[in-house]
């Protein structure tokens, strides 16, 4: 008996495209979350200027009974300038791709361009902070390196530094509730950290670290939040800055940005925020063969309260590799 099988009568078309696209691994974009947002007006030059008044001397000397006015004070202010910069990228797509490919090429390329733009926005803020914010080396973890791995005393020191600088915290605290395993959360600054540090945070459970899952309620928790230590709530991302093999003992150095309100400002250009630009093949050469898809945007950034931001540098407790 002869059995007909796919060896001698196979399908004419071997493959079938699955109905949904797979997800694209994309880091949490934390830096834009904590930035103040300001718009620079159109026709306003190249540079945005921020003004911050300085405190006046509190009049703690009594007037006495002489009837003579005390000397006048001269008010002063600090000025912070930031120059606008323009960015963009795009793709040139031949009409045959659009015509013949089974999937909606223009749709998913548009989506990727938009995400690329948002990620650029975040990476620019990240690298700017690395270049502009002052640093504190972690000393609390005790691995002997410089910087050391994180210990709870580092969180305490940085929070105290920002408090001494009269920085504003982002979040009010979360009151304790009668829920097993939970604990109250203090009013907090944010710390933007690497996902690679999460084992170190877990290692501090019971000695200061409260997982977001152990908050009395996590209604105010952000999607990338992993927990808190004292007055600092921790957001992690795989795109947080890491200087590989850069410590005194040749370990990776992590830049944890701890900041309060108004420490970092993101400035967009009025009338020039994110633009997705599609140009039909009609606008290409004489045979109108190529379409273009592109994004462009303008952005400036400034540390508007230098006293309210620090990069807490650290190494890890163990040097295991994430593969």
């Amino acid at each position: 008996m002869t059995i007909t099988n796919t060896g001698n009568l196979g399908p004419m078309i071997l493959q079938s495209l699955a109905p949904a696209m797979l997800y694209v691994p994309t880091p949490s974009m934390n830096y834009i979350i904590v930035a103040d947002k300001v718009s620079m007006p159109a026709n306003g030059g190249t540079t945005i200027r921020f003004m911050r008044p300085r405190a006046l001397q509190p009049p703690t000397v009594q007037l006495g009974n002489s009837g003579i006015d005390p000397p006048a004070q001269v008010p002063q202010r600090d000025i912070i300038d930031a120059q606008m910069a323009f960015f963009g990228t795009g793709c040139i797509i031949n009409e045959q791709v659009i015509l013949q490919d089974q999937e909606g090429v223009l749709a998913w390329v548009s989506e990727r361009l938009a995400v690329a733009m948002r990620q650029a926005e975040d990476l620019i803020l990240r690298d700017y902070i690395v270049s502009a914010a002052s640093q504190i080396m972690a000393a609390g973890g005790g691995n002997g390196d410089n910087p050391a791995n994180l210990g709870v005393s580092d969180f305490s020191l940085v929070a105290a530094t920002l408090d001494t600088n009269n920085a504003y915290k982002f979040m009010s605290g979360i009151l304790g509730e009668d829920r097993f395993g939970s604990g109250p959360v203090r009013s907090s600054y944010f710390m933007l950290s690497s996902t690679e540090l999460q084992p170190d945070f877990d290692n501090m459970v019971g000695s200061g670290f409260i997982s977001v899952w152990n908050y009395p309620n996590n209604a105010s928790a952000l999607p990338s939040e992993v927990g808190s230590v004292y007055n600092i709530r921790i957001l992690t991302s795989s795109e947080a800055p890491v200087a590989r093999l850069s410590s005194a003992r040749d370990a990776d150095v992590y830049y944890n940005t701890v900041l309060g309100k108004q420490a970092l400002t993101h400035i967009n250009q009025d009338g020039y925020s994110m633009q997705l630009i599609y140009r039909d093949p009609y606008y290409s050469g004489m045979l109108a063969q190529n379409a273009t898809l592109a994004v462009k945007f303008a952005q400036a950034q400034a540390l508007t309260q230098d006293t309210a931001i620090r990069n807490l540098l650290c190494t890890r407790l163990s040097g295991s590799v994430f593969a």
Partner: protein
Amino acid sequence: MAEYSRMAKGSFTATGAYQYVNIPFQPQKVVLVNQTNQIAGITANKVVEAMWDAGTNKTLVKGWDNNSAWNTGTVATNGISAFSANLAFQFGAQQQVVATTGGASTCNFEVTGHGYNTGDVVMFEGLYSTQYTAGMPQMCGIPFTITKVDANNFTVTWASNGSNYTNLAASPSGAYVKKVLYPDLYFPGVSVIYAITKGTSTTIKTTTPHNMVVGQEVAFRITSDWGTSQLNSLPNNTIPGSPIYGFVTSVSDAYTVVVNIDSSSYTAFTSNVAVSNVSGLTFPQMVAVGDVNTGGWPITSTSPYYPSPFVNNTGTSGAYRSINGPAIQGAFANNTRQGFFIGSGTVTPVAWSSATIMANADVVLWYAYLYDYANP
């Protein structure tokens, strides 16, 4: 027809054997003409033309070899290459530190065939002569601009002959240096201090270009390990909570500024920190926090009417302009960029005697291309 290709041309006067050229794309082909050598005619060991192609990644040269014969050659390493300075923390390869020699204001590093150029920024790791108890780990993690001594030696500015420093010898395990490829993507920012001269005004010296201008407002973050912690902006005992800033009153060079803070009575700066205190040691820092300027950068004989900011210096040799337009002096600005790099590698074969593509004061014409179609 080349609908999407890019072409660019220009010229520059070399300030050394290497040069970054910023253009709006990463080229696939670069052609250079050393106009100075071409005009000079037959002169021994002079490159007249150079060409680099991304497909083969080879730098090919023509010119007069060491016997004054017209010859060809290649720059096998550190020739021409495209670059994209876009993200922080891009490093060159780690290289073994063979030995160090500490001095009062500089430290010499022996690194066999380091390949660095004067002006490059490097970082050190593992500078221990005896693991974790002696050596120069105080310098680890700090970005330093180097001065090339020879192919195997360079110096950085740091007082490194104190009692807490021990020279390294015989290639200690784990002692490395690596190049920071793009240390100046954003400016001005935070700089590490290597010396402070006290007085009615205060002179600050930094390990890398400070990118400050006259009128820049600055803050200091100096722990007591380094002495002059009184410069710190907080705490302020006069107006509690109000930070104390200084203003830059003059810029001596790319690494030196004078700030209008009277530091006469302050503690002297020292880098002689004990090795046992290195864990958790925060570096002494000067931070740009604002400015009091009202105008943009002044024009020069070769600049546009509204010039963009200078990077890495203040208008003297070694500076270059950002690719942005005009900005207030002292503003926070971007310096991400792309283009091509002309390295200081030497030409082979041996008929060429350590010739480089260019030398100081040479006028170089360049032509850069990005093609619609390239194979490879």
